[in-house]
C-alpha cells in the first residue's frame, strides 16, 4: 500500500478543516472495508486519510415518529441491524444493512460509507432510495442536502466535492400503513456483491397502493430510482397485473452490463423478478402497520 497520513478528528469542525486543507488528496475513512481494498489495489491513493468515526454527528442514530430518522454516516451496519426501532420502522433498510458482506464487514462498514463508495451495486442505496432518503452534506461552503438517488454520479464517483463530507442521512418517518423491503440476488447465500438489488417502499390506502418507491441497484452505472415503475402502482390494487407492470417498467429502467457477476439479459430478467417479490413483501409489511 502507498504511504499516507492518518488523522482522526473528534469534531465535525476539525474534520471539515482537514478535508478543506487537503482537498482532493484527502479521503474519509469509516469502516475501511472498501477503502483499504481500493488503496491496496492502487485504485485510490489519498495522501491523507481522515478517520471520521469519532465524530458525534456522524455516529448519531436518532428516530422520532414525527421527524423521521437521522442516521449518522458512520453508524455501522450492525448497529442498524440490531436496533429495534430500525427493524420496526425501516425493515427494508435494516435488512439491506444486514446483507452487506459478512458480520465482520457489517461490524465495520456503514450505510454512509456504502453510499460514498459510489458503487452501483451498494446494497443499502436502493433501500435508501425507496425510503426517499436525503444526504446531508457539510463542506467548506456550509451544508447542503441531496436526494440519495442523485448522490452517485458514476461508478465510484459521487456529488461530494473536495472538502465535503457526508454527515447524515435523513429519512422521513414512515407514513401510516407503509413499510419497506429490500431483496438482492447473489449466486451464493452470503458474501457476494449484488447481481441485482431492489428496494421498495409501499404505502397502502385500504387495499390499494397510495404510493410506492422502487430503488434499483447493480443494473446501471449508478443506483436508480425507478420512477415510472413506482408511479405505475399509485391507486392500484397490488394484484398480478400491477406487479407485472411495475416489474416490466423496472426492468425497462435498468441498463445493465455483462460482467463476471451476470449478463445484462440476466440482470434485466431478475430485476423484474425481484421487483415483484420485494413489492409483495413490502406490501405485506405495510398491511400490518
Amino acid at each position, binding site marked *: *500500500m502507498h504511504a499516507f497520513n492518518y488523522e482522526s478528528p473528534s469534531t465535525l469542525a476539525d474534520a471539515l478543516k482537514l478535508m478543506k486543507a487537503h482537498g482532493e488528496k484527502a479521503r474519509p475513512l469509516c469502516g475501511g472495508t472498501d477503502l483499504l481494498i481500493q488503496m491496496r489495489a492502487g485504485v485510490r491513493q489519498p495522501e491523507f486519510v481522515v478517520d471520521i468515526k469519532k465524530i458525534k454527528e456522524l455516529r448519531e442514530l436518532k428516530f422520532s415518529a414525527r421527524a423521521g430518522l437521522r442516521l449518522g454516516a458512520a453508524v455501522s451496519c450492525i448497529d442498524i441491524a440490531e436496533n429495534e426501532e430500525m427493524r420496526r420502522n425501516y425493515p427494508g433498510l435494516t435488512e439491506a444493512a444486514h446483507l452487506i458482506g459478512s458480520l465482520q464487514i457489517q461490524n465495520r462498514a456503514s450505510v454512509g460509507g456504502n453510499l460514498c463508495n459510489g458503487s452501483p451495486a451498494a446494497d443499502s442505496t436502493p433501500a435508501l432510495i425507496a425510503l426517499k432518503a436525503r444526504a446531508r452534506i457539510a463542506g467548506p461552503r456550509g451544508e447542503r442536502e441531496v436526494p440519495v438517488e442523485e448522490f452517485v454520479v458514476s461508478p465510484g464517483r459521487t456529488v461530494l466535492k473536495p472538502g465535503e463530507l457526508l454527515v447524515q442521512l435523513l429519512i422521513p418517518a414512515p407514513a401510516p400503513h407503509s413499510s419497506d423491503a429490500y431483496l438482492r440476488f447473489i449466486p*451464493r447465500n452470503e458474501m457476494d456483491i449484488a447481481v441485482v438489488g431492489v428496494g421498495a417502499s409501499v404505502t397502502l390506502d385500504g387495499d390499494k397502493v397510495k404510493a410506492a418507491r422502487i430503488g434499483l441497484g447493480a443494473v446501471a452505472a449508478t443506483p436508480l430510482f425507478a420512477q415510472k415503475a413506482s408511479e405505475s402502482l399509485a391507486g392500484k390494487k397490488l394484484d398480478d397485473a400491477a406487479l407485472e407492470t411495475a416489474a416490466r417498467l423496472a426492468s425497462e429502467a435498468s441498463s445493465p452490463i455483462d460482467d463476471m457477476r451476470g449478463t445484462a439479459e440476466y440482470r434485466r*430478467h*431478475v430485476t423484474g423478478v425481484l421487483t415483484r417479490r420485494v413489492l409483495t413483501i413490502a406490501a405485506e409489511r405495510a398491511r400490518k402497520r
Partner: protein
Amino acid sequence: MEATTSNGKFKVIGTRPIRHDGIDKVIGRAKYGADYAFPGMLFGKVLRSPHAHARIKSIKTDKALKLPGVKAVVTAADLPEAANRLEQAGEMAINPHYLSMNILARDKVLYDGHAIAAVAATSPHIAEEALKLIEVDYEVLEPAMTVDAAMKPGAPILLPDLRNREEGDKQTNVAQHYQFKRGDVEAGFRAADYVVEREFNTAMVHQGYIEPHNAVGIYNADGQATIYCSTQGAFDVRSLSAQVLGVPVGKIKVVPAEIGGGFGGKTTIYLEPLSVLLSKKTGHPVKLVMTRSEVLRASGPTSGSKIKVKMGATRDGKIVAAQVWMAYEAGAFPGSPVGAGAMTILAPYTIENLQIDAYDVVVNRPKTAAYRAPGASNAAMASETVIDELAEKCGIDPLDLRIQNGVKEGSPQVVGPPFRRIGFIETCEAIKNSDHYKSPLSGPYRGRGVASGFWFNAGMQSSATVNIHTDGTASVVTGSPDIGGSRASMAMITAEVLGLPVTDVRPLVADTDSIGHTDVTGGSRVTFATGMAVYEAAQDAARQLRERAAKVWEVKPEDVELHDGVLSLKEKAEGKAPMTIKEMATKLARTGGPIIGRASVNARGVGPAFATTCVDVEVDPDTGKVQILRCTIAQDVGKAIHPSYVEGQMQGGTAQGIGWGLNEEYFYDQKGILRNTGLLDYRMPTCLDLPLIETILVEVPNPGHPLGVRGVGEVSIVPPPAALANAIYRAVGVRMTETPMSPPRLLKAILKKRAAEETQSAAAD
C-alpha cells in the same frame, strides 16, 4: 456420521483420538510458512504480466534498485537454462525447462499474472512500490484462451518449440494426444437401442486453499540454502528448486511448514527459488507471500475442458459402446491432467467397445497444477450425466444401471489391466440403501441426482522412522506434510503395532535432511504409502524390542511376543515375568542402545477409490439459483484409520465438487485478463451454502495394504458436479452441459425450455 465400520481386531485403528498437532492449531501457535520470521529478514514481491500474451522487448530495473530500502531485483537473466525433459512430480508431470519459464518469464509472457521479476526490500510496502518502478517494454500478442481457440488452424502459437508429430512437424498448441481403444465402437453403437451424445464445457477452477503460497529462503555463504515453505512435498520443492537454480539437490534443505491447504496446488514451486535467489543476492533471509490475486492469477488452477461423450445402451440397460473426445486447457505450458481424465472417464463401467481421444492443449492461462483427483471431475460431469440420461431412456433407476454395468474385481480397466478387489458396486448399494435415497423428495422444483466417481490413488515413495524413547513412549517421523490430519493416523498405526496408547506416540513431519526421500502429499497416498512405511517401521521397532527382551531373558527372539505393549515369552517361564515396553525401554542402553525402527517403500498394491454421491436440490425457476437440500456420499475407503478425518476428506471433497458444479469459474475478459482475482467473485461455497454432508464409509479392504488402507483424499470431488446436474434435471427438466451451473446459465436453459414448450403448445393449438 453414519459409519459401517467394523473394527475387528484393531484397538486403536478405527477410533477417533484428538490429533496430536491439534492444540497448536486451535490456539494460534502452529507455524505456517508465512509465520516464519528471521533477524534481518527482507520481504519480496513479484512483478507480474498485465498481458495474456506478449513478447518482452526489454526489462529495466535500475529505477527500482535506486528506491531506498530496495536490496535486490532478479529477472530470468538470473536463472540458468533448465533441463528440457519430463519428470514425474506427484500426480502431475513437470518439465524443468517450462517450470523455469513459469518461475520467471524469459522472452515471452504467456498469461495474465506471469512472473517477470522479483524484488527484495526492507518492507513489503517498499517492495511493492519498487515493482511500479520496473519498466517492461512489451509487444502485445493475440492470446488463445480456450481449447477451441488454441486448436483452430492459424491459432496464435504459445511455445515455438512445441511440435505436432502426428501431422508433420508443424508448430502447435496441442502438446499431447492420448488414445484408448477397445473392441469395435461402431459395431457397439449399432447394437445399441439408445444412444446419447452430448458436448460439455467446463470452466477452469482453482483449488482455493485459504493459505496463499509462501517461502522464506536463506542462502548461506557456504552455498547451502534453506527454504521454509508451505508445501505438499518438501522433497519435490528441493529437487525442482535445485533444477531451476542449477544447483545440486544436496545444496538445498527444505523445511515443510504447517500447510494451509493445497489440494494438489502446492505440489510444485513458484516462490521458492526466488526466495533463494534474492537471499543469495542480498545475504539476508527473504520472505515472499503471494496475495490472493496472485494465487488466482498465477498459481496452478485445474483445466477447463471441452468433452464430447457418446454412449449407447441396449433396452435392458447394458452399456455397449462409448466414444469420448476430450481436450483440456493445460495453461501456458504442457501438462494438463487430460491423460488422467481419459483414464477415469469410463472407469466405473465395463464397456466392451470404447474409444477415447484426449488432447492436452496450451492456452494463455496459468499453468495448471494438480487439483484433487486431477482431471476426473470434469470428465465425470460429462460421462455421469450421459449415464443418467441413458438410465432414463432405459427406464432403469440410475443406481441400478450403474450396478448392472459397474466394474468389480477382475473387470478390465479402460487402460487394460483388470481391477483387483474394489468397492464400486458397494458404494452404489450403500446409497441405494441409505436413509437419504429411501426418503421421498417432494415439492416443486426439487430434484434428486446421483453420480459416481473413480480415482486411481497413488503409491510412490515414503520413508518413516519410529523411535522408542527411554520412557517407553515413541515418536514416528515421516516426510509427508500433514494437510488434513494424517499425523494422527501415523501415530495410530504406530500405536496399533506397538500396543501403545495413541497419546504415547508423537508424530512428526521432518525436513528433507532428517528423513529419507518421501514423495508429495498427494494422490491420496499418505495414509496408504507413508502409512505402509510407518507400519513397517513400527514392525521393525517391535522386532527390535522382542530381540532386546530376548537378550534380557536369554532366550531366542522368536520365543518372545509383543501384545498390547507387553513383551512376554510365548511359553511362560519362572523369573521371566512379562515386561511392558516402558519397562523394556529402561533397559535399552544395557542391551545395545536406542531402538529406531525404520522403513522405506516404493509402495505397491495401490487400491483405487470409488464414490457415489446423492444430492437433493431446489431450483428457483425465476432466477436459476440452486439450493442444496441434502447430500450424502458413500465412498469405498478400504479401512478407515481415523474415521473422523476420513469423513472430513469425503465432506471436503464434496464441498469442493459442489463449488465446482455451481459457481466457481475463472472469468477472463476478451483480452485474456482475469477479472475475478479475489474470493469475492471467485465464489467458493460459504458455510451458508451447504447442508450437513452425510457420509457412508464403505470398507472394502485393499488387499495390497497390510491394514487394508485405500487412499481416501480425492475421489469425493469427482461425483458432485454430475450429481448436481442430474438433480437439476429432475427439478426443472433441463440437462446442463456446462459448469459452473451458475444462475445465469441455468436460468437461460430454463427459459429456453419454457419457450420451446410454449411454441410446442401453440403449435398443438
